[in-house]
């Protein structure tokens, strides 16, 4: 950077002005009447190494991007006071911003700056802080860009970790910890989605028979083992797209997406019951259970609703139980009439759940 030299004599004023421009506006140009550069600030000159700016025509050096259609010095002079957008014609074709002030002799002073292109410019031209005027906020801007991107990165990492934690928490919230199946919340969520989509589906409620006996005689560890086996069997006997949930101690719900054919469902239910009746070894003991099932089809309703379907599946399930367990029934309207008034008045599943919660949950 040029130093201000103490200059004496009549030329002092002019020399000082030049030095002041160099220091205050290190990216300025002084143009003569014909549009040639007669003086260039040190930083601007640094941007074109090996190329003398003084003596070149400013419009050959720069393309005027805005205002449009500026091709002569005369036109350029009319831009006094407006914001100029210039771009170097030679590489690197850095964008510059600037403003122009005409001089009495027909020339002009143009002061230029980087604007937002400063981030690339400091890299492209290896600029240092002394290349900027002391009052220029360039250094603060560069500092801020770096500091903020560091802070943003830290925040982004935190967000990613929080997102992972959220997904894990959600999964946990939808999973039955003992069996790895969905829980009641997961079942209600999927059921809601099926109803929303309006596609036909079947809802099967399964209640284990003789499970309480396993728990009572062989202990909770045996009970837990049996529940794990049940989960495995239910998964094996159903399709990938079906949703299996454990919604209570020994109660399960399977949602058969798009499967409403009674024969197929009947076969599936029978396969499940048969598989569950195979004694499950636990240590030296054999655990014997079975299951009662009740199924309801979404197509049976004009406007199927979750609560009502669960209730009806439960009624069908109890019809199976009352008929001697280890069997499957589809819900029929007359079952509702036959069911005890108390069962229908109160949503069956919540009543049942309460009844069992003290024993097995």
């Amino acid at each position: 950077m040029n130093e201000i030299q103490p200059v004496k004599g009549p030329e002092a004023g002019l020399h000082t002005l030049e030095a002041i421009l160099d220091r205050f506006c290190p990216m300025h140009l002084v143009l003569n009447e014909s549009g040639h550069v007669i003086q260039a600030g040190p930083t601007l000159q640094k941007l074109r190494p090996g190329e003398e700016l003084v003596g070149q025509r400013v419009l050959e050096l720069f393309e005027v991007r805005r205002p449009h259609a500026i091709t002569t010095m005369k036109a350029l002079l009319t831009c006094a006071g407006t914001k100029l957008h210039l771009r170097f014609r030679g590489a690197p074709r850095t964008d510059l911003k600037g403003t122009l002030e005409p001089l009495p002799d027909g020339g002009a002073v143009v002061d230029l700056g980087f604007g937002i292109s400063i981030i690339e410019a400091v890299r492209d031209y290896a600029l240092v802080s002394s290349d900027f005027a002391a009052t220029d906020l360039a250094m603060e801007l560069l500092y801020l860009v770096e500091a903020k991107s560091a802070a943003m990165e830290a925040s982004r990492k935190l967000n990613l970790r929080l997102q992972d934690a959220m997904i894990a928490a959600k999964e946990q919230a939808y999973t039955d910890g003992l069996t790895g199946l969905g829980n009641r919340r997961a079942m209600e969520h999927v059921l809601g989605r099926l109803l929303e989509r309006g596609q036909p589906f079947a809802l099967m409620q399964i209640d284990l028979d003789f499970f309480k006996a396993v728990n009572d005689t062989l202990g909770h560890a045996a009970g837990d083992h049996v529940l794990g086996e049940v989960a495995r069997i239910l998964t094996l006997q159903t399709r990938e797209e079906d949703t299996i949930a454990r919604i209570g101690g020994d109660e399960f719900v399977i949602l058969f997406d798009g499967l409403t054919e009674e024969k197929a469902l009947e076969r599936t239910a029978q396969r499940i019951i048969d598989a569950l009746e195979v004694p499950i070894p636990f240590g030296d003991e054999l655990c014997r259970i079975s299951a009662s099932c009740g199924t309801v089809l979404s197509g049976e309703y004009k406007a199927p609703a979750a609560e009502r379907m669960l209730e009806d599946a439960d009624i069908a399930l109890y019809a199976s139980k009352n008929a001697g367990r280890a069997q499957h029934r589809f819900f029929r309207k007359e079952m509702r009439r036959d069911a005890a008034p108390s069962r229908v008045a109160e949503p069956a599943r919540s009543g049942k759940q309460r009844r069992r919660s003290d024993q097995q949950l």
Partner: protein
Amino acid sequence: MHGLINSTIQRFARDAYGPALWEAAAEAAQLGFEEFEPMLSYDAEVTERILEALGEALALPREAVLEDIGTYLVSHQNSERVRRLLRFGGMSFVEFLHSLDELPDRARLAVDDLVLPRLELREHAADRFSLTVMTRMQGFGAVMLGVLRAMADDYGALVFLEYASGTQGVENIDIQIIETAFAAGRGFELGAPAG
């Protein structure tokens, strides 16, 4: 205490002494976790506990640990970002010293809830300065001592520093510059390296 400060302590322990030492210190301090989140806030008392645990693990007095953290902040490659941000303070070590007054404001500009202690530089002669650190975080002056020592190296300056851990939240560092261009120092380019 801002998580950035706590996570700096953690990174220092890990980078300088290895993960095993950090895990042991985190356990001794009964943090209940092993990772400080730089963008969350913690009780000041947690910071005290981890500093104490680190001091015990390293068999170093608290101030020595803090000074090492200051040095780490500038000289370790994993904290290159901090070094760069500090180097924005000036072209020379003396310019850097003069920029310290505005360091807390600069920090706040980047992370608005990061409150750093007030710093005040006094110039006694062209080569003699003193830095006053006003803080409730006792020992922050020791951190600054480490920072100044490492920054002098970074600029290639030869300096003599003396720390007085004062009382009532006022700590002082005397700075004597013996030579500004003693060694080559490390480079600094304004354009941040990509990535």
